[in-house]
């Protein structure tokens, strides 16, 4: 593609159209650009277009975005094994782009600059430094010659994104070679600009327009410092530590009323710089404390006084948390003595910890306006960077070395807070909130049984006096925040609360399920759910019979809660429903629950938006099916009548997200039926074989299971409907890919088990051909194992001669070749108790026909493998191997398959009558010895000596003699 007036015109109008409000011209333009992007020279043309000042600003911006995406998808190094989905940019064009981009980036307006900077950073991920040796020098030269801070900050921004990879990659020679290269080239100029800008800042304390970009420059320099120092302390930084630390100190104590942010939600540039410095000194404290210790005292003082002056405004959250983190690191280190004075501990606790833990107006707002986010921060651990959490981390840090002192201090604070509340509950509720927050946060974070205790208070006593009271209040809507705190406290210490007391409080918990506050009813559901999952040893603490007295109000309130505003898709409530349904004796309420759930299902089908809610919803349905239908098959009809119309709707409307669930539950329903299947199921069958359904990866496991259910319950009908070829078509598609081949075998195994050989025989030759060609061209260890298992199942179900004959029908004597090259050598890699039995029995059954034919030489190897399989422990037989999944098949968006726990299948042994495969083998060998004496001894002599011993042992155990 050439850069001509013509192309400029065409492309310009195209870019304009991509911004069009109407769909049709937009699509058209996008398609045109997609096509054009395949042509060589497209990238460079766009680059020129976007940098052409005569072109319309809007067009240039659109072109910049397009260029960045072009680079994103096409700046790849071609790999012959995995051809990329889009034509990659060719090397000569890449070189051209590399030559232009830095200059262009630095000379374009900010909006375009940011796109180009991003593009550059993508390019550097692939090529820098080894394939782009000019980049770093070019950046350095521009940095050293630039005086305009827009340009300087542009360069630093870009460099920052290039160097970020040093922050998360593992140490390796390659990484260190690159790091060294960057250090050699960039460390000195970085310090230079940092010092120079320091002078600019000092000289311009009145001049805001100079000051702001200069401070931004320092912030970026600090971020680069962080990346370059991340892996280990580089020599060049160690040599210049005094200069860096001196500057850091200057900014930590820098104040200038001019640069305070007027917008109270936005953090000021100086605060951001200070936060970046805190991160740097925190890094040094964590990893290089010895070299850093000379500066520690000064910085501890700086950060300390910084925290004393930081406000509680959200705009200073980031600064406050990074600063507290630094103190936390110091408190845990060998230099903890800095904080050893009782007065220091007290001052930290009172001036830093408590104020930061106190609930703020912003948190209250969140509690009311965005309950999900509040819960996520409050109980799900996504509060990593909130002030409350970080302040508590500081307490934990101080406790590492001063446990007793800290515990004593905080016990007193807690008492005071509680007393203040007690004296004036209406005004001082925040104090109680603070106390409850501290107790929960300072108990080690728990998951399983909940926290087992805390040194701060006596849990049982505290619960009795301060929590029970809160929970027993008549009005579930009064003082919602404290109610939520009490419920969280209960949930946290649930294992410590006596069962009797818990059951006594159950009506209260159930009452809170319909509290107006979304947080409160969510916490009530969470609490009940966690209580029901609680175990003592292996026993659930709360059983179905404990639940029975409460079941009706519990279910009623749970379903009522789902009708409260903003809680229609509340995942905590649905999860609680699932838990109740899988534990309780739902008997009389089953149909009521089914009706409720079906109603919800119909609603969410219209617009599935909340994946976890939906997952628990289907989980709840599956639990109900399991409870009701598997106990009483007559119930199935009731369920079908309710569910199948909804399911049909899901499939007809193509509600992609739900299809995998629907297939699993349908399979579950079919499995709990006795044959024959009613006609409506049979009518459902042909659409299931539509290829489009199978193209979606997420559908496959559920569909396979459903197909298996049909094959088990209605093999006749499928055969009569002439649908077997289509089923085998599905098998063929699945077997072709490494990712789904085992699913293909699921189907094939079910077919072999449930369909008579007469029906099957016309297809056998084709099936073997498919399997063997896959074996020949794209074999994997897993595939071979599956193949052996399938063949073994075939032997066991239809007899060895059918297997031998059908394989040989593909090509004469093929069976022996497969036996010798695939079956025998890999037999001993089979794992799993049932699989080992199956394969050993099948292999044993092969001896008679093999010896009768003239295939004696093949028997030695086979016998050896069977004995190895039966005698040696798994660890000694198997080398770990890793099959690489087919990456090319996983491109593109796919819904995720989620297995429903309540709908898992039980497995059945295909060889129930064989108890011990060793005995089976011995009996077979005994039989051969009787019928064809003289053949076995020579074979036995060829076995590995350990296997000879093992065989002799088997013979004596089962009283068989080999002759």
């Amino acid at each position, binding site marked *: 593609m050439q850069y001509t007036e013509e192309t400029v015109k065409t492309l310009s109008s195209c870019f304009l159209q991509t911004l069009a409000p109407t769909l049709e011209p937009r699509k058209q333009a996008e398609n045109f650009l997609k096509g054009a992007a395949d042509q060589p020279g497209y990238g460079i043309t766009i680059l020129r277009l976007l940098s052409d000042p005569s072109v319309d600003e809007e067009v240039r911006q659109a072109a910049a975005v397009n260029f960045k995406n072009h680079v994103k998808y096409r700046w790849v190094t071609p790999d012959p094994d995995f051809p990329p989905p889009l034509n990659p940019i060719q090397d000569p064009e890449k070189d051209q782009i590399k030559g232009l981009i830095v200059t262009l980036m630095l000379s374009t307006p900010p909006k375009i600059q940011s796109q180009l900077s991003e593009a550059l950073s993508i390019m550097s991920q692939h090529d820098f430094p080894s394939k782009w040796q000019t980049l770093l020098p070019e950046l350095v030269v521009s940095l050293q010659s630039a005086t305009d801070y827009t340009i300087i900050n542009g360069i630093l921004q870009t460099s920052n994104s290039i160097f970020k990879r040093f922050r998360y990659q*593992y140490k390796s020679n390659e990484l260190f070679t690159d790091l060294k290269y960057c250090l050699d080239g960039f460390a000195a100029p970085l310090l230079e600009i940092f010092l120079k800008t320091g002078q600019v800042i000092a000289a311009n304390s009145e001049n805001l327009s100079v000051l702001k970009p200069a401070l931004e420059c320092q912030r970026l320099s600090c971020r680069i410092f962080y990346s370059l120092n991340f892996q280990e302390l580089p020599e060049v930084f160690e040599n210049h530590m005094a200069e860096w630390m001196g500057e850091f100190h200057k900014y930590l104590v820098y104040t200038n009323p001019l640069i305070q942010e007027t917008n109270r939600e936005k953090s000021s540039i100086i605060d951001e710089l200070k936060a970046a410095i805190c991160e740097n000194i925190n890094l040094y404290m964590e990893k290089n*404390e010895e070299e850093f210790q000379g500066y520690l005292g000064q910085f501890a003082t700086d950060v300390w006084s910084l925290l004393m002056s930081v406000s509680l405004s959200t705009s200073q959250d980031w600064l406050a948390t990074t600063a507290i983190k630094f103190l936390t690191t110091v408190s845990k280190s060998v230099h903890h003595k800095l904080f050893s004075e009782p007065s220091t501990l007290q001052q930290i606790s009172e001036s830093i910890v408590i104020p930061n833990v106190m609930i703020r107006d912003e948190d209250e707002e969140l509690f009311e306006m965005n309950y999900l986010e509040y819960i996520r921060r409050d109980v799900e651990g996504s509060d990593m960077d909130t002030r409350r959490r970080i302040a508590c981390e500081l307490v934990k840090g101080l406790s590492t070395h001063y446990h007793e002192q800290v515990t004593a201090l905080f016990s007193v604070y807690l008492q005071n807070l509680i007393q203040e509340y007690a004296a004036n509950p209406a005004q001082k509720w925040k104090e109680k909130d603070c106390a409850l927050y501290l107790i929960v946060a300072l108990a080690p*974070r728990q998951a399983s*049984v909940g926290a087992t205790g805390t040194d701060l208070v006596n849990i049982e006593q505290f619960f009795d006096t301060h929590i029970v009271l809160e929970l027993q209040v008549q009005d579930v809507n009064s003082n919602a925040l404290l109610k939520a705190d009490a419920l969280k406290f209960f949930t946290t210490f649930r294992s410590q609360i006596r069962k009797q007391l818990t059951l006594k409080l159950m009506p209260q918990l159930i009452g809170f399920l319909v509290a107006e506050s979304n947080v409160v009813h969510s916490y009530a559901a969470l609490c009940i759910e966690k209580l029901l999952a609680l175990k003592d040893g292996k026993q659930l603490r709360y059983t179905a019979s404990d639940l029975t007295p409460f079941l009706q109000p519990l279910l009623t309130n749970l379903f009522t809660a789902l009708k409260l505003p903003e809680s229609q898709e509340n995942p905590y409530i649905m999860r609680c429903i699932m838990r109740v349904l899988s534990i309780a004796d739902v008997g009389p309420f089953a149909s009521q629950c089914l009706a409720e759930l079906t109603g919800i299902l119909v609603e969410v089908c219209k617009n599935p938006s909340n994946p976890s809610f939906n997952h628990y919803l289907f989980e709840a349905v599956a639990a109900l099916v399991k409870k009701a239908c598997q106990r009483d098959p007559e119930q199935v009809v009731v369920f079908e009548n309710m569910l199948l119309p909804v399911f049909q709707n899901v499939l007809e409307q193509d509600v992609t997200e739900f299809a995998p669930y629907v297939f699993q539950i349908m399979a579950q329903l079919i499995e709990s039926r006795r044959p024959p299947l009613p006609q409506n199921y049979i009518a459902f069958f042909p659409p299931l074989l539509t290829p489009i359904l199978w193209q979606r990866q997420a559908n496959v496991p559920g569909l396979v299971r459903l197909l298996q259910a049909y094959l088990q319950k209605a093999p006749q009908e499928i055969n009569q409907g002439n649908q077997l070829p289509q089923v085998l078509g599905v098998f063929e598609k699945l077997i072709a890919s490494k990712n789904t081949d085992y699913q293909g075998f699921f189907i094939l195994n079910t077919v072999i088990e449930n369909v008579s050989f007469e029906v099957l025989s016309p297809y056998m030759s084709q099936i073997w051909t498919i399997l063997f060609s896959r074996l020949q061209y794209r074999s994997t260890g897993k595939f071979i194992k599956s193949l052996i298992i399938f063949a073994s199942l075939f032997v066991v179900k239809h007899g060895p001669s059918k297997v031998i004959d059908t394989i040989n029908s593909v090509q004469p004597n093929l069976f022996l070749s497969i036996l010798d090259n695939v079956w025998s050598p890999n037999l001993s890699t089979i794992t799993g108790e049932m699989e080992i039995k199956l394969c050993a029995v099948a292999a044993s059954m092969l001896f008679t026909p093999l010896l009768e034919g003239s295939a004696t030489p093949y028997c030695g190897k086979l016998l050896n493998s069977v004995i190895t399989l039966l005698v040696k422990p798994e660890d000694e037989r198997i080398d770990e191997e890793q099959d690489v999944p087919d990456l090319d098949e996983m491109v593109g968006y796919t819904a995720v398959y989620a297995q429903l*726990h309540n709908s898992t299948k039980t*497995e059945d042994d295909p060889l129930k009558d064989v108890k011990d495969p060793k005995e089976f083998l011995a009996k077979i060998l005994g039989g051969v010895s009787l019928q064809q004496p003289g053949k076995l001894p020579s074979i036995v002599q060829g076995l590995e000596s350990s296997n000879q011993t093992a065989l002799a042992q088997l013979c004596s155990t089962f009283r068989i003699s080999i002759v």
Partner: protein
Amino acid sequence: MEGASGAHHRDPFKSSVGRVAGQRRRQQAVTVGKERRESVVRAKRLRRADPSDHGDDGSMQPAVMGDEAAYKALEESTVNAVHNLKNLLKGSPAKRIGALQTLRHLLSCTAMPPVHVAIEAGVVTLLVDCLAFGSSEEQLFEAAWCLTNIASGDLQQTRAVEPALPLLILHLGEKSAVHVVEQCAWAIGNVAGDGEVFRDVLLKQGALHSLSRHLLSPVPSLSRTAAWALSNLIKGPSPKAAMELMKIEGMVDTLVSHVSKGEEDLVVEVAWVLVYVTSMSDLHVTLLLNAGLLPPLLGCLASSEQLSLLTPVLRTLGNIVAGDNSKTDVVLSVGQSLPGGIIGVLARCLESKHRTLQKEAAWAVSNIAAGSILQKHTVFNGGVVPPLLHLLATAVFDVRKESAYCLGNLCVAPKESREQGGIILEHLIALVDGGCLPGFIALVRSPDVEAARLGLQFLELVMRGLPNGRGPKIVEKEDGISALEELQFHENDELQTMSNTLIDRYFGEEYGLEEEYGPGMDVLRGSDDSSDYPPWRQGGGLTA
């Protein structure tokens, strides 16, 4: 069913704690940090006043740093000296030598000689001329000394010396006087200390062979300087030079005999040669062991108190035990003659107050602990555990990390004898009871990705290994969950996946409910995990 599938289940962390340590040997090749060798600055050595003219020492006191005027004067004199040398180049030999001596005095009277002004004044070409064939010994010596100190400067200054290299190497020949050879070797050593580019140049010009001849010199200072220069030359990261050196006939015996003689100053230098050789060539480790390196080497370790000696000896030992287990066996058996065995000696190093020794010793221990089951038992019972636990709790970061490798390796069964699914339970329980868990959890929280991974791997062992489900409980009690949670959104994919997997497996919502739902639970964890189950069983499609 569960048991069978459990045994087959491929665990991502099971043996990786051990494997990582084994692979680390060569990863040390590229460094960005300062090499911490404390008492000796190894890479570059300035030659200050000559021992023979002691008288000068007093009169030529180094200029006080910060005294700018004095330094200015020094620079000025240096420039003058260069010009003077230039003028006298064609003059009488005696005057030339006099000029050279003046210059040499100026270049060696302070720790920061005014090398840059000398170079700018064109000193190198003059010195190259002075190195010409047939020059007097004294002239060669003085010129080489000047070059030595010029090459002790920064990269640019070293580069300036490049034109002199062929002649410096030439004067390493047998016919040269000993003090000339030594000074040339010194200069070359300084050049070689400045990176692989210069080392390559020197190798191409044949410096290696010329230097190696002088290892056997009867003059102690010469053999020492030659060994030091060689150690700089073979640093790598490419192993080419080290291999080249070891191919020289008799080299193995020469090195071993130097260590045996036990002359400490020489052993220090030879041990550094051994450090690089043993880090790059397995074959030569074997040859060195066969030649009897170990008894004298371990002897040094037990008898010396000198940090500069212990450092390279420990590192060499660490390299040897990073090889296959049979070499470790040899080390252990030779070490039996030492008080407390080799492990006891290492334990004392771990107890030393020097960070370098702690780190080197921990590294050696981590490699032994990555060996066979027997070796792990020996380490475990040899007295290193208490100091390691102490270091893990209190030491500086990099020592803590090394200690963690040791402790982790002690708990992972070698691949060939998978007792208890890869865990040596006895060790694990003892270490956890010894209070190691907070130390590992601190590593999980560390910003260092490698340390975080190590911490995660250990937590995994604890949670999987401790009987009666005690593992998750104790991790929970030590506040390990919040440490794991901090990694859930880490930019490093592996850390993110590992922490998510651990949280899901041990603290996820299914926690404690497995029995209720059966093994099907695992299927949820994604296709990677499920692929580990034998194929057809998953579908359960065999029901008749």
